[in-house]
């Protein structure tokens, strides 16, 4: 059963089309990576899916309703979003930030959720640190923990929800990138649907069972990593000539880029 239906979605700002006739469905528990070059419309797609902006035309249905049709509070129990950059101007502690994911709820159950989420992102023992004093990667992991708490609360209320990630690994070191992938897999195993914008094609292949390729606001490819991440797609969409191989055991593609080509129109 699909939890998310996107049909003929277009977003225009002035005369510029950011998204143009995009359609796809996502089933519950699927992990989807969205890839594409800068300006392809990835972030716009995520903003539409999260309910932040309304489509110019076409429909998005999340749990059978347009995101805008939900009250923000109800929507927050059904989808959680991890943005690329979150700046916190006031000296909140790590625990205070993570607890924010739980909304108005307080108490032992929430503390346990926060504890588990911090452990999952390898930040146990950071509770009382002021978030501004942490490194960029650590801050990103704190926000991931906050989003996990929000997901857990939503799961209690309405069952597994939708997790939207905007370049979640951008500021993480290699080990924590893989940690994040495995946390995303655990979420998916419990039924959470995961959609992530990923720039690193190798990580996209590793994380997702399905890859959506966007190019100039249009859907360029949609399918399993082995079908979508190949040298012709990489050449056409990114303008990069590369060697694409398969990892021996997992059968997951990996990309070794070696030269930028002139983009074919």
């Amino acid at each position: 059963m699909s939890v998310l239906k996107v049909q003929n979605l277009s977003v225009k700002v002035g005369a510029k089309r950011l998204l143009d006739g995009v359609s796809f469905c996502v089933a519950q528990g699927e992990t989807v990576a969205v890839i594409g070059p800068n300006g392809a419309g990835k972030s716009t797609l995520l903003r539409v899916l999260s309910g932040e902006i309304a489509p110019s035309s076409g429909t998005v249905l999340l749990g059978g309703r347009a995101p805008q049709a939900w009250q923000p509070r109800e929507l927050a129990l059904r989808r959680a979003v991890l943005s690329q950059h979150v700046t916190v101007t006031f000296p909140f502690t790590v625990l205070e930030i993570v607890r924010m994911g739980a909304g108005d709820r307080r108490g032992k159950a929430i503390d346990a959720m926060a504890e588990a989420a911090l452990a999952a992102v390898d930040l146990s023992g950071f509770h009382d640190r002021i978030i501004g004093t942490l490194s960029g990667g650590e801050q990103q992991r704190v926000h991931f923990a906050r989003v996990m708490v929000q997901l857990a609360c939503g799961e209690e209320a309405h069952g597994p929800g939708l997790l939207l990630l905007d370049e979640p690994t951008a500021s993480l070191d290699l080990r924590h990138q893989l940690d994040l992938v495995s946390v995303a897999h655990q979420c998916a195993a419990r039924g959470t649907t995961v959609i992530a914008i990923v720039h690193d094609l190798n990580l996209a292949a590793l994380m997702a069972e399905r890859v959506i390729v966007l190019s100039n606001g249009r859907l360029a490819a949609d399918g399993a990593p082995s079908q979508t991440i190949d040298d012709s797609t990489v050449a056409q969409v990114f303008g990069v000539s590369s060697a694409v191989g398969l990892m021996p055991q997992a059968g997951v593609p990996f990309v070794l880029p070696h030269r930028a080509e002139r983009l074919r129109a």
Partner: protein
Amino acid sequence: MSDAVISGTIPRPAGSRLRGLLKGPLLFPILLATLLIVVIAATAVGGAGIPLERIPAALGLADPVAMTERDRLVLLSVRLPRIAIAIIIGALLAASGAIMQGLFRNPLADPALVGVSSGGALAAASAIVIGDRMTAHTAPLPFAVLPVAAFGGSLVTTAILQRLASRGRTTSIAIFLLAGLAIAALAGAGIGLLVFVADDRQLRDITFWMLGSLGGATWEKVSLIAPFLLVMLAAVPFIGRGLDLLVLGESEAFHMGIAVERLKRVAIVLIAAMTGAAVAFAGVVGFVGIVVPHLLRIVIGPGHRKLLPASAILGAILLLAADTAARTIAAPAEVPIGVLTALVGAPFFLVLLLRQRGLAGL
């Protein structure tokens, strides 16, 4: 190995135990007790000195032998209403500053900064000069004209700002802040123009307004301004969490279930009403709105659910203390309260900034 380490909590540095108590259950009892002490001190101090031991009698709480009619008059119709006004205005200024800082995600935002206070002051100055000309110097300006003008001025300024910063359903906080700076400058120019054309008496009235004063407090004024404090206190639980989440950014607040546009509108109306009420009754009193929340964030952290009510109480404490000083330092003359808060507040604020800079290692 201690229990704390085993249970996974990192040990806090020394001295933070006290901070923990202040942050926790002791915060409001300590603040309220301090307020009570300052109130008692303010009751006993003043130009018409009434020693502490005569106060219970004057209030009719003790053997009335020691009481004098003069004591009672001074206390009930001069000093107590003034104390009440100081408490209310201090609370309004500090809380509206805290709300504005949360809304703008900027610890330096203040209603005085974006012209909300200046708009009120401009309207008051206009009322003084133009109203005086219209009545052709024949009658004094009716009592209610100035506060109403100041309140209206603050509301109109905020409405203009809101309009400038809004496009469709969304309000740009950056435009609001920058347009506010322009409007503050414009209001300042307007006041300058009025000062230029004013005669000596009007000039004194305008100056009095610009410097701020709690003089002339009556129970009538208290009953007019008290509702604003009550509305604010009632609103705190509804906007506290929203302001906390807004700290992460408007998108994040929305992602976590906050109706962001509604929150911004409510916050802006509250700021306008509270600042307008404060300017209407006390003129321009600066720095309370910046210093109080700043100080509290250091001790209790930035969470708005505690910060807003705590700011209100600490604002009340500080303004009452400042006003008591203002009317005793040079008694029987009074130092303008706005001058005093700026004199104490501005250097204090600089110290806070330098301290933060030290902490951040900049």
